[in-house]
């Protein structure tokens, strides 16, 4: 029973990393300047690396010869349980940076707690990931500040991105049955406990960036239960194309 729950818990963490990694990789050569192309690729690579660790672990828990690639490339939309924020389209640079900032702040706090997990694998992955995420958060929060306090145009764009993406942030702190059980067993993280700190990081950065925090209204959730925005299906059909079109091939 626990193994099945642990599998689902780890799988969700893998999905979060995989989907945001895939989104970031769409920037490839499209950044505002070369140094930023390199930074975005770096973050994308870190996220795929993390996805690989979580999904490999999930595959071991699943057994039956499952592999990380199978989990990434052969599941359908409803079987993906990433947070909806991760799958939101790149939009403009401000949209991408705001999405990243919200996630980085969450990931940093989440991973700090996951290090204490009773599950050695999860703790090890968290220890490796926290270093990367600390850098990611520095990168994204600096951009929020630069864009917020840059020009009138950049201020308007980043504020609009914040307003549009805000409704996906509540979901990060929700707990379902799996989370409850994992918390009870000291394997998982109680996300309700990190909300206060997340709010603090967000408020500090937004205030320095001269940006305002939206009110909570129409907050959406459902990702952990496989309910997504329509964007996810397109992301998957692109990402999974070769594995689906040539099921017998080895790459």
């Amino acid at each position, binding site marked *: 029973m626990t193994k099945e729950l642990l599998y689902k818990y780890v799988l969700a963490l893998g999905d979060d990393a995989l989907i945001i990694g*895939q989104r970031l*990789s*769409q920037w*490839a*050569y*499209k*950044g*505002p*300047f*070369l*140094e*930023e*192309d*390199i930074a975005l*690729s*770096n973050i*994308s*690579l870190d996220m*795929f*690396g993390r*996805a*690989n660790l979580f*999904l490999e672990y999930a595959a071991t828990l699943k057994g039956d010869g499952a592999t*990380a*690639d199978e989990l*990434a*490339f052969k599941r359908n939309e409803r079987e993906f349980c990433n947070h909806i924020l991760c799958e939101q389209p790149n939009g*403009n*640079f401000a949209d991408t940076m705001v999405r990243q900032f919200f996630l980085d702040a969450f990931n940093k706090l989440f991973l700090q707690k996951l290090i204490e997990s009773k599950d050695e694998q999860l703790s090890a992955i968290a220890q490796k990931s926290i270093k990367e995420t600390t850098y990611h958060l520095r990168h994204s929060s600096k951009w929020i*500040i*630069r*864009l917020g*306090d*840059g*020009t009138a*145009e*950049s201020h308007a*764009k980043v504020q609009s991105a914040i307003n549009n993406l805000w409704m996906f942030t509540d979901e990060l702190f929700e707990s379902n049955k799996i989370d409850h059980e994992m918390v009870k067993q000291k394997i998982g993280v109680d996300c309700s406990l990190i909300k206060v700190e997340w709010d603090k990081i967000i408020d500090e950065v937004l205030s320095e960036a001269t940006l305002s925090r939206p009110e909570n209204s129409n907050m959406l959730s459902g990702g952990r239960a496989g309910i997504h925005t329509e964007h996810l299906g397109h992301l998957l059909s*692109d*990402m999974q*194309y*070769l*594995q689906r079109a*040539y099921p*017998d*091939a*080895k*790459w």
Partner: protein
Amino acid sequence: MSADNEIIFQKKIDSGLKIEPKDWMPDKYRKHLIRQISQHAHSEIIGMQPEGNWITRAPSLRAKMVLIAKVQDEAGHGLYLYSATETLGITRNELIEQLQSGKAKYSSIFNYPTLTWADIGAIGWLVDGAAIVNQQSLRGTSFGPYSRAMVRICKEESFHQRQGYEIMSKMSNGTPEQHEMAQDALNRWWWPSLMMFGPHDADSSHTSNAMKWKIKRETNDDLRQLFIDRTVKQADLIGLEIPDPDLKWNPETKHYDFGKIDWEEFWEVVNGNGFCNKERINNHISSHEEGQWVREAALAYAEKTQNGVENE
């Protein structure tokens, strides 16, 4: 005075010393280098596009990570090479403008489309393979910053070539469909890869000064031959056939003889009529324009904070 300088300059080159940015150099040497190094930088940058075309569709987590890392390396190479060019007294903005206006060229090979995943293998194996041959030779080039950039770039390129060869090998030995994709990619990329070394020596307008100044260390034809000799064996090893009926080992020269290169196609593509010329430049322009407000914001913020205004 200038005549003396020129003698000293040539003596330095002849004795194998490097020319550094602050050293005196003939204007034509400077111009030749700006043209060559920036063309090289632009090739790295435009080269990100055909490969970037497959990043989101890479068929495994590992393949995806390797490809992202490779495209990222190319951005890095572009950066060092732009910096090396800047030491010659031109700015990155000017260089980008030359690329976008068509005044500066980039390697024509990147005007061919990447149609299947095997093309990513073919680019790594053949295009990077050809680039390495050229770049290994350029490690000995006379201009210090260019030579040092090449030493660093060569290390990463050999990893790229292995990555490409690995994809081709897996595909050639995979399902019949995969094998077919691999052979098809080789068929399409082989001749353009040979063209990467540039026209035959007899027809190359830039070769003679470049050799005298040791900017170039070996001729186009010699480097092309080296590449062919290396690559034929690699193709055999993974069961792929080089698409050249005239290709055969010549025991006298100890090199492979090969068929005629279609220089008409080469010049067509160089002159803008390849499959993707317009698209590659338009993509570059649109990303650059789209990023304008971001660069402006970063600049505005930097100016504010440097003046200490942020604490008002």
